[in-house]
């Protein structure tokens, strides 16, 4: 039995410690906000936080998560009120929406350690998250807006 702290709740699960966190979240715990896009750490669709850091859950085994705090999109805020989510709403960022939980998790991790990112900081932090629909211009502007919302809080 493995014990995982996900979104502040302890979950016990009987799974291969080698199993990537993504598939345990999706198939076993039925937390399906984190998406599969490549399985190789190349696209960011599966991004979650491990102790506040953005990680690719498709290439991180369950074993690496024991004793750590995991946050998924479901736990980022209770009601979609995180500044990044608020900014995403204001800027109508999503198109198909599929990559967006990963984008939001990467952006929120960025703002957690860099409250005033430069344009280059934003591009660097977000370069691992592919959006095939092409929402990048709005991701950039929404992150800047999230900075303002965060400052005002």
């Amino acid at each position, binding site marked *: 039995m493995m014990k995982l702290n996900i979104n502040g709740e302890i979950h016990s699960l009987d799974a291969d410690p080698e199993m990537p966190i993504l598939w345990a979240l999706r198939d076993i715990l039925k937390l399906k906000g984190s998406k599969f896009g490549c399985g190789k750490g190349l*696209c960011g669709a599966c991004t979650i936080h491990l102790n506040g850091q953005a990680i690719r859950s498709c290439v991180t085994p369950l074993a690496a998560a024991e004793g750590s705090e995991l946050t998924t999109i479901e736990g980022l805020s209770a009601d979609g009120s995180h500044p990044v989510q608020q900014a995403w709403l204001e800027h109508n960022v999503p198109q*198909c*929406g599929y*990559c967006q939980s990963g984008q939001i998790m990467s952006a929120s991790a960025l703002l957690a350690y860099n409250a005033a990112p430069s344009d280059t900081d934003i591009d660097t932090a977000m*370069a691992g998250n592919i959006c095939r629909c092409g*929402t990048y211009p709005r991701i950039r502007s929404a992150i800047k807006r999230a900075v303002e919302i965060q400052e005002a809080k």
Partner: protein
Amino acid sequence: METISQVNRRQFLQFTGLVSGGIMLGASLNVSGQANKLIDVPPGTPSEALAFNLFVQISPDGQVYIVVHRSEMGQGIRTGLPQVVADELEADWQRITVVQGLANNKYGSQNTDGSNSIRDFYSKMREMGAAARAMLVQAAANQWQVPVQECFANQHKIIHKPTGKNLGFGDVAVAAALLPVPKLAELTLKSSDDFKYIGKPVPVVDLQNFVTGDTEFGIDVDLPGMVYASIQRCPVVGGHLKTLDSKATKAVKGVLAVLTIEPTPLPAAFNALPGVAVIADNTWAANQGREKLKLEWDAGANGTHDSDEYMETLKKSLQSDGRVVRSKGDVDRAFDAHTHHVSAQYTVPYLAHAPMEPTIATAVVNEQGIEIWTCTQNPQATRDAVAAKLEVAPEKIVVHVTLLGGAFGRKSKPDYAVEAALLSKQLGGKPVKVTWTREDDIQFDFYHAISAQQYKAALNENGKVIALEGRTAFPSISSNWSLDANFASDGEVSLGFVDMPFELDNLRLQTHRADTHIRIGWMRSVSNIQHGFAINSFVGELAQAAGRDSREMLLELLGSERMIDLSQSGVKKYGNYGEPIEKHPLDISRFRAAVVAVTDSAGWGSKTTADEGWGLAVHRSFVSYVAIATRVKVSKGKVEVKEVHCVADCGLVVNPDRVEAQMEGAVIFGLSIALMGEIKVKNGAVVNSNFHDYPVLRINQTPAITVTLLQGSEIPGGVGEPGVPPVAASVTNAIVAAGGPRIRDLPISGHLLV
């Protein structure tokens, strides 16, 4: 003859799976006299022609349910269609619930491709909303016993003008449902000045769910007792399995079974590819087990296909006899008379769609019938493909459409749903979810066709083009259904090739032979990709050869403001994206306006540094006109796209924010094609496998994008695709202006660092 009819509650359930009470209306093209419907049936209507396009339901609590029968894949259609209905209905947007329609012929076509959801259904939906409004107003007038002319609808209420008293939609919903449905001719549509939602940037209905991760895509479907499948497919189209050793696979924890999917004879159609499926109790175990399969394949006749060699074959084909598809004047004589010739060949490789969500389907097959949940652009084709393969009547198949995590044309081919159904049947009716890996997605796509094109022109002493000849060769999508389709179809030739807009006295366009060796499919703007690239590149080359500004050359070639009549130059079948040419003519004034607007937006002609330059392109597709101006920097063998200006004339726009988003996305999709898109095939199999070797644009490669919308028509045009075709040539033209090489063979990454 078009009518509007009511549908009963049972039918509403059947089409949507939704349970609620109240009135329901259906707009229909042609209505049959089924006894259980209150239908205004025109005499002589064939009984099988019933075709509902859309449904509105209003429950006694005032909630308005609007059915969307098209698939949402990021274009915002679950918002756009209801915006139109709600506007005519005078509904309060906050009290709308959007309901996804099931696969049902009564809706008309549900195939969400060709950028036609708004084009085809805008008027229908206005009529739907207006009819429901008329019935609600009539019901209120009846209740008050006042003349109906004294009543009007406003924001979910019916108001009696003289007294100011009002009733809510819910208050009169039941009474309204009992009224006769108004005839189309009796409907009053709103004046566009009174639109509250049409033309407004209404946020998409799924927005809140997207940002909280609370959505259902194909990958999120979860059924009790469901098992997970991962399939290793035959790497070559037309091949089959020789030997299978699954011992190691079966030893993997969580693996439940190993099943085979038998080959179906070519042509490929939407059939499941032959393969070996590993069934497990989670996706990861299925993938792990699959990696341990020991398989040998017989590649078959396509096993020698090599994309590099094939590109040479296509270029040679351009020199052989072609089929003339458009001809005017005497091209050969003009070439003899004017000896300043310019000619060039352009190529575009195979391309994969690579939507962020791969193709995924879940199926349950049992004696009662078949139920499928999937991210499909085409629920009806999904139903029909499954029906044919499993030999089950289509009426016994229910197809639920989830949200689509991108599609771009890939998800209109339902081979993955056929796989899920075949596996569930083999497992005695267990629910099976088939999840394609990214490797599967890249290696088993229906690819955008590899292509070669050639243009040749004769110029006079003033640098004016006197004659032009164009040639194109690429494997046809028709090859999916016909093994001897070895020329582009009329439909494909209609996509930006035969409708080339230039005003020339001597013109000849021809297509050339191209055989097919892998599955070919339509991808966002289809053959317009190569056609828009080649013709716009060639304009850049002509300007350069003549020592002229490329904007001036482009405007001169477009010529006088006129409507082009292609039949005058021998074009027999011009598709015009399914639209009558009178309604959507080839309008040169709209081309010109887009070019002028985009060069104004970009500040065309202003000075750049020596290593920077601007490129220009314009293209009409899906009856919309898009011009693009791009600024690039070329230095130390590396190109950087700095800035893209996009002007789109898509006619009447329902949701400007979503149209702008589509253009931003199309520019980025087009940049992926131009800069880095290339699928390679060796020994019949696709070589690329994931985003490391089939890269797509990332945020750090994304330029500043400025979108401007023009409205050159009161009728809506396509939106999802038309932004793509002009992008690539705007970049390659800019590279030349920035002092870089002329790139005729995409992608640019084959020539410069990107």
